[in-house]
């Protein structure tokens, strides 16, 4: 889950669909943090608390959003604006960090009026600051002034040539303009310098997927797996990508990777269960058609499918009636291919 929910602030792609700006206590906070809900659900829990009012709950929400690096700019504006405007004293020496967070959310939501107002305030407070220059660049991006923004970042890079943030913003500009190939080339240059930037590999993978470059996306996921061999999500996604490329060898490879993902997490990994079902079915269909490796279709794929079926039936026992019937029906139809092969 984390890979697609984590948004690195440096990767804000400013061109997005338009959204107009809309209008506890410590023990409870820890409860949310420690709960086993996924990060997105936690955001909603924090937001519910913040709805109840109070600067403390608003601060907790913003803090969680920052730490979990998730992108909910509308929530940041909704709860952050009153926070920084009315409770600056409560924020103490963290004030300007929260202020910057709200400013970036204003860029993200395309709220020009708020952006100008807050940018002016931060300029006055930190004249000549490099960090403020970067915010100016992001402001230009949010207005769609890509050439000016690019110039801004180039100027900063002249002074500090290893500024990763500015390099990433430049890549984002090309992505926002739809010039994907240029973005990919810049990415490759960036990753030669900053090869440990895990989020960059993830973003590059997404870029390749949007271009239909499945092989290159797979390579990115190989890097991600190497960087975090205990992360079940990377194996699952890698399996999905190689399956998409297709062919019996890739179905077998995907089967291995989905299985490995499940060995790391078999509690909340429905994607891999479904992926494994798809692989087993695809391999069995293939074997059945070509009369080759009939045993493979019967033994390994059949067993794996049986395992998956049991797990999925378990998970779906709690589901709503219609979906449960539909899904179990589908599983049953799929399982028939294994009965056929056995004959």
């Amino acid at each position, binding site marked *: 889950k984390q890979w697609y929910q984590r948004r690195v602030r440096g990767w804000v792609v400013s061109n997005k669909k338009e*959204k107009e700006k809309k209008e506890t206590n410590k023990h409870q906070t820890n409860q949310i943090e420690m709960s086993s809900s996924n990060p997105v659900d936690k955001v909603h829990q924090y937001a519910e608390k913040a709805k109840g009012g109070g600067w403390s709950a608003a601060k907790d929400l913003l803090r969680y959003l920052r730490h979990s690096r998730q992108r909910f700019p509308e929530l940041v504006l909704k709860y952050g604006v009153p926070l920084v405007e009315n409770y600056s004293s409560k924020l103490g020496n963290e004030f300007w960090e929260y202020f910057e967070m709200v400013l970036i959310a204003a860029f993200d939501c395309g709220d020009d009026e708020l952006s100008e107002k807050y940018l002016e305030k931060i300029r006055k407070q930190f004249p000549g600051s490099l960090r403020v220059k970067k915010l100016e660049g992001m402001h230009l991006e949010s207005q769609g002034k890509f050439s000016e923004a690019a110039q801004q970042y180039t100027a900063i890079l002249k002074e500090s040539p290893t500024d990763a943030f500015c390099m990433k913003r430049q890549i984002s500009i090309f992505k*926002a303009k739809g010039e994907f190939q240029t973005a990919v080339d810049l990415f490759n240059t960036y990753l030669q310098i900053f090869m440990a930037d895990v989020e960059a590999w993830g973003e590059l993978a997404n870029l390749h997927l949007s271009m239909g470059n499945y092989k290159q996306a797979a390579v990115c996921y190989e890097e991600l797996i190497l960087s975090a061999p205990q992360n079940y999500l990377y194996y699952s996604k890698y399996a999905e990508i190689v*399956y998409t490329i297709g062919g019996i060898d890739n179905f077998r490879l995907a089967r291995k990777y989905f299985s490995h993902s499940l060995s790391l997490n078999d509690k909340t990994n429905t*994607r891999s269960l479904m992926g494994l079902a*798809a692989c087993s079915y695809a391999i069995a269909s293939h074997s059945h058609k070509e009369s080759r490796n009939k045993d493979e279709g019967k033994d390994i794929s059949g067993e794996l499918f049986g395992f998956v079926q049991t797990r999925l039936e378990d998970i779906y026992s*709690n589901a709503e009636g*219609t979906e449960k*019937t*539909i899904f179990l029906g*589908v599983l049953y139809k799929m399982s028939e291919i294994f009965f056929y092969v056995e004959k």
Partner: protein
Amino acid sequence: MNYIISPKAYSKIILHAHKYPFSPVNGIILGRLSSKDTVNIEDVIPLFHTHTLAPIFEIAMMQIEEYCNKSEDKLIIVGHYHANEILDDARLGMMTRRIAEKLQGEFTDACLIMVDNTKLSLHPKESALQLYTRKNGSNWEQSPSLRFSNASTLRLTEEDLQNEKWNKFVDFDLHLDNPSKSWLNAHLDL
């Protein structure tokens, strides 16, 4: 061929796009052939807010087909909708085209609907959808033949947006993270 879209289907597509403003979104369109030259689009099943990949897509399609077979309304799959990630990107991606072409194998008048992101708004004044059709293996071309079945469609969508119905909106990706959430979205009461 004329395509007429119900308020429910229109709203769902728009809600899907609003829920995930930073990702591409797509899904399957359901409806029926109501006469020899009219397709009625009744509903949509929202699929993904990630780049579509084959294994989960295949399983999702099997479930949607099963749903159609069992549905009392005798719905069939009549097309595919997609919203690009970038605001002013109107390109038809390779996977998007492939999916729509595959659907034409089952239903020759299957259509492709692209969301025009620039027309998305909390106060919609015009349709944000662009219809694409394809005849006899040629290219996908823009077609003006998409109409609302109900004159109040935009107003109804505006209400759904004001009620922030995207919060409880569930697509297949979200369902996989949390199987107790229903991708049929009956709970939204659209």
